């Protein structure tokens, strides 16, 4: 588990290249569907060959970003997952524009528990792009 918030925050906010056509994609609307979000992420992460504990990290991270979408965006979120150059990539797109603000590391220990900060800690690389239509968050997990 590499603490990578600084690394993530240092990533320039540039448009992300489009996911491949073969990526798995599903839309979710509300927190009531988090169980389905997790089932979807679990299936794709397992089929990508990740070991159990890493599958659980993927599920935790995707669940967290999706929860954030349900709370701050109005139209739910779309989750897209695929394998690319030895990594499992999960992209969460929503119509909210809060992504950039929460990347600043919190000053005190109490807020270390902030969900998205924890996502940065358990994910190998996090890239966020805030654009006119909302926010795209891309999580990379190294396979193997």
């Amino acid at each position, binding site marked *: *588990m590499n603490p990578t918030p600084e690394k993530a925050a240092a990533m320039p906010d540039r448009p992300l290249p489009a996911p491949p056509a073969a990526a798995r994609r599903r839309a979710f*609307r*509300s*927190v*009531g569907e*988090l*169980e389905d979000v*997790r089932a979807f992420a679990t299936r794709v992460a397992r089929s990508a060959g990740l070991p159990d*504990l890493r599958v*659980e*990290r993927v*599920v*935790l991270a995707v*669940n*967290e970003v999706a*929860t954030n979408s*349900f*709370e701050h965006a109005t139209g739910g979120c779309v989750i897209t997952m695929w394998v690319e150059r030895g990594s499992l990539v999960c992209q969460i797109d929503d119509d909210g524009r809060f992504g950039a603000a929460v990347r600043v590391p919190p000053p005190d220990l109490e807020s*270390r*528990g*902030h*969900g998205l900060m*924890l*996502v940065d*800690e*358990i994910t190998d690389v996090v890239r966020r792009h805030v654009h006119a239509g909302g926010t795209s968050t891309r999580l990379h997990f190294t396979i193997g």
Partner: protein
Amino acid sequence: MAHPTTVDHLLPGDHVCWTFDDHERHLSALVRFLRGGLARGEQVLYLTDTFLPDAFLAAAQAYGVEVREPERTGQLQVTTAEKSYLAGGAFDAERALDGWRAAIARARGQGYSALRVAADMGWTVRATPGVERLAWYEAQANRIFAGGYVMALCCYDRRLFTSAELDHISAAHPATARAGAGAHEEWAPMLRVRRDCEGLRLAGAADRSNSEALASVLHDLVADARFLPDGAAPLVVDLAELTFADTGIARLLASAAAAAPGRLVLRGARPALAELLAVIDPARAHAACATRSQA
């Protein structure tokens, strides 16, 4: 709407937000629910906001459930929301919670193995004083239901609530049977919360959709832990069967343990949750991974 068979998967101690949008299947679920309770020697209570009590009883009889004798003995009671929740003309959340405690004491006193309650919640959309405390009430009710004696089926008509309202209310329940639940695959409550003299047992998954329910029970547990006499065994939150917890839940658990140091401890966290607790509260994370027997 949730499939009528979902009610077959409930156990005493479960508190479920059950959604429906058609009265035929609502009726079918209620009949299954009361048939199961009567067969198990439980007391069955139905607080209806949908049917006239006599009409409901006649319908249950027509579905093949013998209701006359249990109704005569008091094993089965069907009454309206007006005569129960709103007996004083307004919704008084505290009085309703006290009412559950009294109903549990009566049912136990009469030797029933459990108290099974179905409640139609449609009355909450009418202009009723006190109804703004509904989500608070539902969250508090978990403290009572987690005792493991009551099985509570809160029936919410999806046509009467916005999806935001339903999300808010369902977060106060450990589990929700949503549209489509049980239609294609077997449904089970997402989270089971059980409270006993040793502490709390959590089984299933906890996330933003049921966090209010868990927060309320943990709050109660912290208060009890603080009143433990010095040297008493700590209250334990048994996490061994908690298969998923998001970061908010992990934070809730870590804060509860930190609020009553040495008097409330986390045990049995699975690897993913243990990892999360280690990031949130490194000092206590080690103990949280220990199993209950090591404690």
